[in-house]
């Protein structure tokens, strides 16, 4: 271990290692609390609404689920980005990263199960959900089944992660990536859907959106946090992946956001963009994505060649914006369209 660390001196101190994940978490929580406050369900006479514990608890737990999932995806993609040609330098990094992936997968599974509890509570205002109510909910509502599936995938990811801790890179990186992405698939099911022939294309567009965002964000955080010493080799690889993700995320986001609005009664475009909560959140996400483009491009075209420390600063900016976008993303799944 010591000889290996000598080959790749760890420049990142614990504080700088917490910087990017911290910024991402804070950004996401901030955005989700603000967005949820602005889009809170309005009081309706004679109808009980859930209390603040559920009103804020549910979106916060959902954001934590997203953060954990992003961490798992990012840490699973990392070995592919590091490459397998120079195990002397990459093994010490991976040895640190593998247990973290397992921890994040456990956190993912737990937050997914907690989300089911909160979603049940949201539908039965004033009552503390019992096991029977939760079972009923999962039995009858697709969003509950989706979360259950996500939790199962997270547990499988934890299992495979444990095997990777034990057996190292003999456990194929692709397998870890596929399982993590599998767990993301049910997440769009908990959001909006439309009743139209475009239902399936829109769902797939949302799936691509969720997966692209997780790979991009998770990959960036993982690379900038754990692969600092190897940036000259790793950053170009990541940059190619990030470009694909950026295109994928923006295109699929526009298609699913605008498509969902156009196909929902009351969501007539373009007016609904500014009059409905959903539309305003779509606009917010477009703005955030637009803000990401120059930052990402600057990192890719300017800094990559010169290998300056300012990469860290720009990456911090990028990650913060991504965090905000993730927070808004959770609010958008719950905002009203019509």
């Amino acid at each position, binding site marked *: 271990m010591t000889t290996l660390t000598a080959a790749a001196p760890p420049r990142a101190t614990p504080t700088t290692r917490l910087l990017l994940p911290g910024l991402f978490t804070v950004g996401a929580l901030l955005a989700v609390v603000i967005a949820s406050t602005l889009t809170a*369900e309005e009081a*309706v*006479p*004679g*109808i*009980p*609404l859930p209390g603040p514990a559920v009103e804020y608890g549910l979106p916060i737990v959902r954001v934590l689920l997203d953060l954990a999932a992003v961490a798992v995806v990012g840490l699973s*993609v990392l070995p*592919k980005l590091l490459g397998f040609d120079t195990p002397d330098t990459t093994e010490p990094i991976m040895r640190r990263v593998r247990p973290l992936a397992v921890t994040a997968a456990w956190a993912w599974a737990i937050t997914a199960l907690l989300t089911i509890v909160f*979603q049940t509570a*949201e*539908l039965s205002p004033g009552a503390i959900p019992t096991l029977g109510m939760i079972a*009923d909910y*999962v*039995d*009858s*509502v*697709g*969003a*509950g*089944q989706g979360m*259950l*599936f996500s939790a*199962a*995938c997270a547990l*499988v990811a934890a299992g495979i992660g444990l095997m990777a801790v034990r*057996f190292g890179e*003999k*456990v*194929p990186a*692709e*397998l870890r*990536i*596929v399982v993590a*992405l*599998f767990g993301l*698939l049910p997440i769009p*099911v*908990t959001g*909006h*859907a*439309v*009743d*139209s*022939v475009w239902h*399936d294309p829109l*769902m797939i567009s949302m*799936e691509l959106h969720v*997966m692209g965002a997780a790979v991009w964000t998770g990959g960036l955080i993982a690379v900038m946090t754990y692969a600092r010493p190897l940036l000259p080799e790793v950053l170009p690889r990541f940059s*190619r*992946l990030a470009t*694909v993700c950026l295109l994928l995320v923006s295109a699929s986001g526009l298609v699913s956001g605008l498509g*969902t609005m156009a196909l*929902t*009664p*009351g*969501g007539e475009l373009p007016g609904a963009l500014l009059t409905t909560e959903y539309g305003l959140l779509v606009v917010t996400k477009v703005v955030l994505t637009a803000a990401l483009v120059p930052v990402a491009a600057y990192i890719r075209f300017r800094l990559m060649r010169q290998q300056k420390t300012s990469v860290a600063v720009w990456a911090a900016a990028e990650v913060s914006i991504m965090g905000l976008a993730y927070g808004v993303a959770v609010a958008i*799944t719950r905002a*009203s*369209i019509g």
Partner: protein
Amino acid sequence: MRRLLTVLLVACAAAWALMPGAAWAHDVLVGSDPADGARLDAAPSEVTLVFNTAVRTGYAHVNVTGPGGTSWADGSAVVRKERVSVKVRPLGAAGEYVVGYRILSSDGHPVSGKVTFTLTRPGPGAEAPATPGATPAATPTATPTGTPTGTPTAAPTGTPVPSAAGGDQAGQGAVSPTGPASTAPDLSMQAAEAAANGGAGMAVLWIGGALLVLAAGTVVALRRSTRGEDRA
């Protein structure tokens, strides 16, 4: 990188396969009876809300709130595909009535809102115990029955709880709405819904299948990598 893209494609294909039928949509109110903003001479005996797609049974709440926060819904909401209706006791004083709803959209999250209508002439419920010729602008004092907080199971027509009329008219109505809606079991509806979204049994089946595939993949991958090592 190419392998990674292949992996992404496989995941997408799986997404397609995993997706249930196109039975889910975001439900939006498209109409109601009485319509929003309607002015009625006669009190309706039932209020119906119409959504763009079939609403989930079992989680719908509808309530009718009259002037002064009095509650008039009789029993709990009944879901029939796109239509959610609730019986209304004979309305009382003239004035503005609000139909509040919170339903479970077929794509899985609650949708709430309200529809307002105005009763221009006092309904039969107003004549009951207290003040017969109530003025149209009747305030809570004119509302006859104390609003029952629970849902009366077999509510008689007319005023269900005359004894409550005396002392506690005003304050009570605002306190608590009717209890949670437990829709009368409409078995065919539930069966159709279960068929549309699979039910928990299907979810367990999917999870089990996925676990098997993953376990097999792990075994194959591990065996291959150890074999590769032996050869090396």
